[in-house]
């Protein structure tokens, strides 16, 4: 038995864009145990419920995370709509779906870039981010914001997408798809990438279930679980199958996310083809509701659980957001056990950690 030592990893680390601290108990070069400690980004966002009214909260909650911002705003609005007992206009549902899928594309492309950077493929990183900018251009064109869209409101959306812009999105995502095919080839076939990702950080289906992994991490381990199948917003009208891989290693997680970008492109095509030609994009909601609701949506990083409890006061009693990274942390700790020290950075990246979501 070698000598045990503890290596602190983070909070400021070149491979991490965000601060997380992990104490790695290592023996020679092998990790025995990983103890994460969070709190570097803890703001206490949930405590703002007693200082902001229900409509202002939409914009605060959107800023839980800058990458999956649209989903957080949408999830909160859906939860409040459930409590109010209102149904948003059909066109708003489709608009939300289009924006949500665009934000999934930008999030996954961002992650693919970070992964490429983590295994030292700088060129691929730049290519992913170059394609991501095209998605951001579409988002900026339709919402005015690049990472924080602020188009959700309780009862619908604030902006409409004009038919010209819908056509432009429809054709632009095809160009993006053509460019993605090129980087897909590199991710799937390149032998250097393969040797760096295959067989590393394996989580089996049983482990993933027992540890409560969410989103692409669970799907890469063979769990067929995609909250979009719940049929919220316009997903009830769209045809898709969750993307599953059963290897459970870093490569499988990469594959799942890469294929989900293509899936998003397909979903946007479907949504644009079916979007109803209405003028109503939102309904007015007034008053202070009473009730509680749990809503789950599929964020780019996995299942997010929104919980709101309101009791007829101007301020809601409790807002709780369980973000996907929070659910994937136990999976990460399990994955790191037995890993080589040099693979730690890569593994932390493959769960797509979003620390500001986690700590709120």
């Amino acid at each position, binding site marked *: 038995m070698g000598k045990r030592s503890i290596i602190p990893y983070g909070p400021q680390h070149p491979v991490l864009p965000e601060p997380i601290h992990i104490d790695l108990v290592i023996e020679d070069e092998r990790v025995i145990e990983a*103890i994460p*400690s*969070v*709190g570097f980004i*803890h703001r*206490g966002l*949930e*405590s703002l419920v007693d200082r902001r009214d229900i409509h202002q909260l939409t914009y605060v909650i959107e800023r839980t995370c800058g990458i999956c911002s649209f989903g957080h705003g949408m999830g909160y609005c859906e939860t409040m709509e459930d409590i109010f007992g209102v149904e948003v206009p059909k066109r708003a549902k489709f608009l939300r779906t289009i924006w949500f899928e665009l934000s999934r594309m930008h999030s996954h492309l961002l992650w693919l870039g970070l992964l490429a950077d983590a295994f030292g493929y700088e060129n691929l990183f730049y290519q992913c981010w170059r394609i991501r900018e095209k998605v951001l251009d579409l988002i900026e064109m339709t919402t005015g914001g690049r990472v924080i869209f602020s188009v959700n409101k309780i009862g619908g959306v604030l902006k409409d997408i004009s038919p010209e812009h819908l056509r432009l999105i429809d054709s632009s995502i095809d160009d993006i798809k053509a460019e993605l095919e090129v980087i897909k080839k590199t991710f799937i076939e390149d032998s250097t990438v393969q040797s760096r990702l295959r067989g590393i950080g394996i989580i089996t289906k049983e482990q993933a*279930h*027992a*540890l*409560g992994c969410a989103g692409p991490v669970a799907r890469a381990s063979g*769990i*067929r*679980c995609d*909250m979009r*199948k*719940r*049929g*919220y917003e316009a*997903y*009830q*009208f*769209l*045809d*898709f199958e969750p993307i599953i891989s059963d290897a459970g290693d870093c490569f499988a997680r990469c594959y799942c996310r890469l294929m989900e970008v293509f899936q998003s492109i397909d979903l946007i095509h479907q949504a644009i083809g079916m979007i109803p030609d209405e003028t109503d994009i939102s309904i007015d909601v007034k008053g202070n509701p009473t009730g509680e*609701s*749990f809503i*789950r949506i599929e964020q780019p990083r996995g*299942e997010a*659980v929104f*919980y709101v*409890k309101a*009791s007829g006061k101007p301020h809601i*009693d*409790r807002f*709780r957001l*369980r973000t996907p990274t*929070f*659910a994937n*942390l*136990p999976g990460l700790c399990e994955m790191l056990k037995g890993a080589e020290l040099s693979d730690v950075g890569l593994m932390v990246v493959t769960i797509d950690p979003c620390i500001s979501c986690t*700590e709120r």
Partner: protein
Amino acid sequence: MAEVICPENILEEIQLGELLPTVMEKKNAGMRLAQACAAFIDGKFELSYSFSDDKTYQLVTLRVVIDPSEEVPSITEIVPQAVFYENEMKELFGVKIQMITTDYKDKFYRIEEVAPFGPKKEDA
């Protein structure tokens, strides 16, 4: 058009004593702990443990309402991944949870304020 599976969420109110057996039951039924959270409402803690069935997308929430002084047994022995949720409840709300497998001892988020969501000092 795709099939839609969206069963209504279920909320089960249970007593504190029933918590561990019910959690065990849910786990044996193949359900996954989706989230656990606390809320401090009108001088009582409301603990919610949500379990999700990944095949039917059913969400079942167990609700335990307790007094702030009551002690809650940890479910981490049954569901190990609850460790972060319970540490969060303990630190942010001051819920007295006993025997967490990895107890961060209120040093999970390392905030300076004690139990910011929990009962205020003068109430306690």
